[in-house]
């Protein structure tokens, strides 16, 4: 795949590097990279990869641009609010580099489509905002033998690693599986706007190294970044022989949807009350024989402290199993609440499994409460 005169000029600073040169740039032109999530990480990663001349760049996202995204998602501007992210990203990347092909995949990645989609690409960048998607992407990459550059962020902290088939451990070797409520996403925990810029640019760097076959990618190395302390650290980890997907006797032969994945979109598995119903329950309880439900807020302590329902108690989801005895086993109902109704469904499952009799949760979480009942509540 030869370069045109225009491309030689556009990529001239690459051509000067002996590690890339004309042959390397032609390799990038022939390469196909898929960026999963056009968010904080996907924005800088895809912008740099487009600028670098990756011949085919795919963008997966089923979401729409929200005003709160613009603090960090540099693919979009104010006029993009409300637009589909994949299509808006495609327009921005095409404007940046009209020499490359940009493909918008406006879909939610799931077990049913992961293999078909990922196998069309040579290298995968995971910039998703959900732990369950990270396992899905990792498993698909291992099964398809595709390199994966993974990164994740939380508040002021980031982490990154690279998987290259046959050369080192995968994401599951590091973190074998997810646990309930352990890793709040950006919407739940907040994030420094520039942080994904740092990690997303690192992902683009790793992808280019992998495609060019140069340098030492983060294989078997977890890189962590603390923006507050301004510290980078590196931790070595090995392939696990008992890894469920890349181990000696893998149990995962095809990508699977986690039961908790897409929880905000999937049908609820436990009884739910909407905000208006919960308000009635709380008001009605004082005047009738019915005991008031116990409202358990399963968000993290700092989220609870920022604002919560009067009379609610705070048991972070990660502590619920240990503190299950604090819930009434038989008396009044327990209604779990969280920010959006995702963690509260997990709390229902966990507590019902532990024998708590009447559990329900607040549909749409405190965001729904703020929208329909009490706009003065601060939802962190």
């Amino acid at each position: 795949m030869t370069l045109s005169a225009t491309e030689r000029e556009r990529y001239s600073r690459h051509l000067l590097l002996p590690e890339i040169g004309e042959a390397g740039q032609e390799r990038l032109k022939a390469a196909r990279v898929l960026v999963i999530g056009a968010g904080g990480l996907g924005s800088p990663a895809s912008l740099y990869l487009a600028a670098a001349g990756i011949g085919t760049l795919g963008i997966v996202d089923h979401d729409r641009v929200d005003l709160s995204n613009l603090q960090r998602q540099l693919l979009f501007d104010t006029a993009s609010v409300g637009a589909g992210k994949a299509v808006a990203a495609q327009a921005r990347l095409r404007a940046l580099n009209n020499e490359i092909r940009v493909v918008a995949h406006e879909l939610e990645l799931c077990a049913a489509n992961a293999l078909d989609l990922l196998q069309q690409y040579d290298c995968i960048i995971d910039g998703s905002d959900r732990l369950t998607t990270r396992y899905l992407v990792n498993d698909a990459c291992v099964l398809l033998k595709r390199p994966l550059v993974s990164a994740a962020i939380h508040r002021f902290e980031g982490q990154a690693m690279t998987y290259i088939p046959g050369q080192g451990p995968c994401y599951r070797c590091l973190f074998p599986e997810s646990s309930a409520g352990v890793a709040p996403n950006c919407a739940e925990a907040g994030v420094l706007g520039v942080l994904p810029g740092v990690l997303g640019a690192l992902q683009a760097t790793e992808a280019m190294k992998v495609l060019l076959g140069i340098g030492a990618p983060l294989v078997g190395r977890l890189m962590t970044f603390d923006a507050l302390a301004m510290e980078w650290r590196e931790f070595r980890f090995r392939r696990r022989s008992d890894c469920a997907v890349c181990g000696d006797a893998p149990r995962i032969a095809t990508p699977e949807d986690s039961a908790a994945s897409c929880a905000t979109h999937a049908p609820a598995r436990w009884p739910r009350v909407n905000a208006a119903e919960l308000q009635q329950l709380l008001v009605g309880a004082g005047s009738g024989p019915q005991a008031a439900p116990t409202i358990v807020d399963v968000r993290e302590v700092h989220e609870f402290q920022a604002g919560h329902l009067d009379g609610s108690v705070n048991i972070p989801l990660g502590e619920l199993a240990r503190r299950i005895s604090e819930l009434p086993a038989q008396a009044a109902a327990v209604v779990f609440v969280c920010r959006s109704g995702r963690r509260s469904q997990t709390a229902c499952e966990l507590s019902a499994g532990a024998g708590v009799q009447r559990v329900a949760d607040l549909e749409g979480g405190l965001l729904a409460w703020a929208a329909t009942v009490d706009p003065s509540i601060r939802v962190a």
Partner: protein
Amino acid sequence: MNTVRVPSPLRDYTSGAGKISASGATVAEILASIEREHQGMRFRMIDEQDRIRPHIRIFINQREVQSLDEPVAPRDEIHLICALSGG
């Protein structure tokens, strides 16, 4: 005393501190020391069967901990790593 680095998802237990002190000759003792000062934090990392939770990794300096019985030297730095999901 040993320095323990705390990942941001667990900093609700340390009043926001990213670096705390703990003492012990093994990983288990370090975790017990952490729990005495920061109640509830150990459960977020270690399950009821005393296994490191699958979304948590513990490193002594740069070496990954496989067992809570592993020894810790006085100047070792303990790193608690938590899977992050944000993107």
